[in-house]
């Protein structure tokens, strides 16, 4: 729980945005409004009367609906079954699925959604699943609809559509509360913006009377906490992280020697279905190559192939002077591949071990982490201290268990370890997921540093803004194929979004 003294007024018929860094308490506050969490103190008034929400059932009964950041849908059930769950229509005690489908179709139609009530949810795109979530809330008569980070997983096109949906709901007299950290987007759609920081609401402003940079400084706090902590000016960090502005890059695009040259890569996903269906790409030393795409289009499998974690089923390639086929994680490491995986707790660190032990992982047999067959405790401590200082990990204590660190600091440890090995090819997946602005800016700066030192960087990210901010070139993956390849000068958010949905390039 991360709320202290947070206040929020919600006016009927408006679109209120709540912004704040990760961990500022946005989601916690909304879960309180939805009856999932229970506040230790404080009051909650609806229409001027105090109300106690004991469970989501109470919230639903009072017309509050919530679309969670991680969808609350049962993937094996159909759209209609998901929507009516908990208030199923019955006939003689048995589930009346026909009526359920009719009812859901009617609700969807009333609010202008196109949904097939009989489709299984796991066959739908992320955008459609989100519509199911919204319909689920509206079907229960929600007057106030809370959307938690709804655009985090959407393409720009889907985000536009969602913005229209939200405006439409407000026009029909519903109230929409939008949680987000994408300030540009918020200002485009909201009537009013509430800013949260460290569990408190610190400001409420009208959207028409503020700017992205004003909001950003409210979010991170006045003064220069960001600058002091990260060594990166808050504004530039905030700009790239928040607005996705394609910042002019100081370093010219250098084309060093080829570190990765892959042709027609094929691999199967965890479910046994083809995940990569002929991906070709090249990576040069000294450039950042972004891999864009909607989640689940082969990005993860590509990163795993490049780091030796997934078996290559077809195609061939050269990676740092050796064949890509038959690559194992050990061989990849020996050739100079660094890896910052998507799920650090599963693949990068052992959370119960200390920070210095985690820093030594993978290089525990080499100096300065070992001397002969023995652990070199002194050398390890020194190197870890150095890295913790350079990467501004807090607390800078090499002996605490890694799990005692915040997510951002854990990620800094991983990045520090991988870059300290001086990789020739760095594969990073979702490097800033879940990090706050300061940590995001810092990780970005480190990736740029690695590039400047001559490493080739492959960066898989679901966050299009991040891809736009960092990449020298971008490949777009759709259903395991490359549907677009753009050098930096041709980067265009709209066009990338179209290719992410599998659209063919425009002719003429």
């Amino acid at each position, binding site marked *: 729980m991360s709320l202290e003294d947070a206040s929020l007024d919600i006016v009927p018929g408006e679109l209120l945005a709540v912004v704040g860094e990760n961990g500022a308490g946005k989601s916690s506050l909304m879960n309180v409004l939805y009856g999932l969490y229970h506040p230790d103190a404080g009051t909650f008034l609806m229409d001027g009367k105090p109300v106690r929400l004991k469970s989501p059932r109470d919230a639903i009964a009072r017309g509050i609906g919530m679309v969670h950041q991680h969808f609350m849908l*049962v993937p094996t059930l159909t759209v209609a079954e998901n929507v009516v769950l908990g208030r199923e229509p019955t006939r003689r005690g048995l*589930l009346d699925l026909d009526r359920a489908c009719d009812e859901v179709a009617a609700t969807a139609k009333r609010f202008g959604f196109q949904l097939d009530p009989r489709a299984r949810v796991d066959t739908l795109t992320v955008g459609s699943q989100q519509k199911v979530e919204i319909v689920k809330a509206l079907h229960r008569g929600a007057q106030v609809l809370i959307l938690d980070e709804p655009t985090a997983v959407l393409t720009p096109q889907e985000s536009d559509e969602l913005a229209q949906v939200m405006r439409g709901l407000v026009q029909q007299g519903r109230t929409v509360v939008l949680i987000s950290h994408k300030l540009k987007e918020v200002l485009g759609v909201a009537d009013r913006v509430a800013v949260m920081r460290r569990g408190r609401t610190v400001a409420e402003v009208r959207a028409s009377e503020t700017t992205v940079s004003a909001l950003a400084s409210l979010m991170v706090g006045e003064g220069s906490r960001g600058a002091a902590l990260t060594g990166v000016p808050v504004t530039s960090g905030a700009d790239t992280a928040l607005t996705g502005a394609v910042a002019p890059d100081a370093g010219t695009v250098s084309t060093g020697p080829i570190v990765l040259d892959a042709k027609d890569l094929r691999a199967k996903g965890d479910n046994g279905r083809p995940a990569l269906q002929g991906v070709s790409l090249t990576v040069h030393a000294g450039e950042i190559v972004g891999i864009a795409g909607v989640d689940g289009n082969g990005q993860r499998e590509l990163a795993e192939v490049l780091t030796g974690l997934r078996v290559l089923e077809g195609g061939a390639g050269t990676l740092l002077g050796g064949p890509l086929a038959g690559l194992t994680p050990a061989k990849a490491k020996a050739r100079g591949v660094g890896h910052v995986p998507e799920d650090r707790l599963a693949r990068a660190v052992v959370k119960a071990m200390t920070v210095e032990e985690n820093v030594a992982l993978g290089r525990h047999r080499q100096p300065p982490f070992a001397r002969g067959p023995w652990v070199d405790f002194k050398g390890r401590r020194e190197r870890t201290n150095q890295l913790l200082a350079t990467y501004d990990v807090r607390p800078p204590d090499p002996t605490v268990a890694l799990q005692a660190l915040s997510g951002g600091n854990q990620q800094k440890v991983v990045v520090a370890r991988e870059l300290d090995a001086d990789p020739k090819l760095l594969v990073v997946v979702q490097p800033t997921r879940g990090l706050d602005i300061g940590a995001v800016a810092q990780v970005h700066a480190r990736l740029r540093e690695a590039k400047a030192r001559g490493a080739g960087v492959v960066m898989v990210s679901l966050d299009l803004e991040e891809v736009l901010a960092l990449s020298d070139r971008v490949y777009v993956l759709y259903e395991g194929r490359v549907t677009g390849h753009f050098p930096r000068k041709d980067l265009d958010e709209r066009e990338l979004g179209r290719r992410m949905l599998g659209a063919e390039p425009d002719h003429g």
Partner: protein
Amino acid sequence: MLEVLHSLLFSTLDAAPALVFATLGAMLSERAGVVSVGVEGMMRTGAFCAAVAALAMPTPLAVLVGMVAGAGLAAVHGFLSIRWRSDQVVSGMALNLVAMAGGTFLLESLFGPNGTPAITQLSRWNVPTLAHVPLLGALVGHAAPTYLALLLPVLFHVLLTRTPLGLRLRAVGDKPHAVATLGLSVSGLRWAAVLGGGLMAGLGGAVLSTAVLDRFEQHTPAGLGFMALAAMVFGRWTPLGAFAAALFFAFGNALRIGLASSAPWLLELVPQGFLLALPYLLTLLVLALQGQRGHAPAALGTPYEQESR
């Protein structure tokens, strides 16, 4: 040949109910997301309590006592795995061991090592005119559980696929957080499934000592609970699949008895112990052939915590 088939069918139907009930019980619990390794222990508890109760009351009532006893042990499992979110496999195995040792202890201290005194078996449904008709005759002459075992899988199928409760149970096994955000009680649904599973496992055990045998024996249920788990996996966690799988295993058992009695020369070629192991070998073979467990409920074995996503 017809006679062989007739007797195979008869003994399959005679042996199947205990396994069918236990399989349905395990499936019910697991569809709601609670691992049901403890089904062996629940069967043993049900078998023991039913046999002891049958000494003092009519046998059909004693079967009910066995069911309640099975649910009682399931309640311990529910308390550990739902209330205290402990590891469900460990909890289930612990219950199996407790039932194993507790059953032996109570049996020896109350009745001696050779099992409880004989009790009145559940009566069989005899239709003398049909009994000698080939094959069709194999359908009569069984006790009530056999017919219940033909009926319950269909009822469970309807429950899971056609009722609101079934929809909620399936949802809570795949994505409990979705159920919670709709204002439904995750623990309530899971408790219902675990207790229901315990009743069914208890029934399976009670059938062993009141219909298949006429007493509680030292080794009851002799691994039948684990076979039920295999049948549940083989049947892909569906009631009708579970039924078919349980019948298949019961057939394996019948085959063993049938082979031993109708082809005594086989015993000279194949050691007796090997034949005894036949149903269990079938279990291993089936599980090895089926391989992946892609049909398991997604949240199986994961305790529900509101603040984890």
